[in-house]
């Protein structure tokens, strides 16, 4: 298998990891009762969303 294929597979795995952490943050955002924490989760989610949309 050539290097590019291996790299692409690893890259796809990275997108799964990104999705996993994004979902974890969404869950935390939903369950938290603290406004400050909710704000923090929301802001941290931004780069994860942008990466999944392949914008940055």
């Amino acid at each position, binding site marked *: 298998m050539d290097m590019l294929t291996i790299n692409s597979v690893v890259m796809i795995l990275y997108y799964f990891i990104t999705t996993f952490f994004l979902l974890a943050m969404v869950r935390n955002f939903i369950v938290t009762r603290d406004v400050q924490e*909710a704000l923090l989760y929301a802001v941290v989610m931004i780069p994860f969303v942008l990466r999944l949309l392949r*914008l940055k």
Partner: protein
Amino acid sequence: MNIRTAKLIILLFAGSCAAIAGSLFKEHMEYKEAVVASPFLSEVRKLSDYSDAVKGSVNDANVYIFNGPTPGGTVVLLGGTHPEEPVANLSAQIFTENVHPVQGRVIVINRINTSASMATRMGEAYPRFYHISTPWGVKKWRYGDRLATPLHSWPDPEVYVHYPSGQNLAYMDVRNANRTWPGRHDGLLCERTNYALMELIRKEKADIVMDFHEAELEYAVENTIVVHEKGQSVAAMASMMLTSQTFDVPIGMEFSPKALHGLSHREVGDHSDAVSYLVEVAEPMLDRIRGITDEELLMSGKDRFVMKAGEYKLLYSPIDESGWPVEKRTARHVATLMTILQVNNMLAPEKTIILEGIPDYREITENGLGAFFQNPDEAPQERVFYD
């Protein structure tokens, strides 16, 4: 206010931040730069015509070919190796839009690492675009990063082992189009790009390859021509002539180190018959010590913090209130290439390359760059291309 309302407001706020940022990034990524090739254009090929290594990738660049009526030498100009160095692609495009080869051939690629021009460096607050006013309106280019974006080449290896030397380089340099020469057919994006470029250089039997760059004033290799040993006589003569007759700030010369791999000045000369040159000019925007990072700094090259560093003798290039304007930087690169050709014509007359239509140092510094870019809306459409 209950927690659900607060969360809704937060979500709206974060969502609109993401939407605004996302649309700005998307606009940057999708913007195409118009290029009006000179009337002496022979043909435009794709880099993938030389090797399938880049087929279907973002780095499958336009290759502008200009054949003179009389045979002679062939020069290949590489722009946009590091898209955070705008003068590199601007200098190349000055040739693409104005060149009239009288003898020999010119092959230009305005952007060899398009991927790196589609996003700016993370965490640096770089502007996305830069603009130059022309007699017919404002022309716009993408500003970019030094490295190909991780969207196109990811992940990086733990340690980047350069092919074929086996030298260990920093991991992110596998996305640096000036660390992946001579490249490999089945490597990562930049390795493939440089492999295809090597194929172009070999198949077109290039005699001279010029790689345009800019560097921070804090960096020791500044305002200089770095040359493969094959070109030392030409580069020495060109640097002396330019320093003596044309430039206010001298241009030096450096030998390409034999043991430092992946760079164009080393590998292109080693892996082809071409003589490879790389030229550097001062770009204060790249200095770590700079102040406000905006388009104004990028274009004017004026920065009082960098000037202060100069007062403390921390820089390898002079700088004063007049800064390092983009016109002067571009004029130096264009004049350097023209002088190298002139000297090369004397030392290797069988490889003569005579170019007309290219503005000289004075014309660029006095008239600005805008005068040398044509209006894509009025130009014949068969000469308009997008990079």
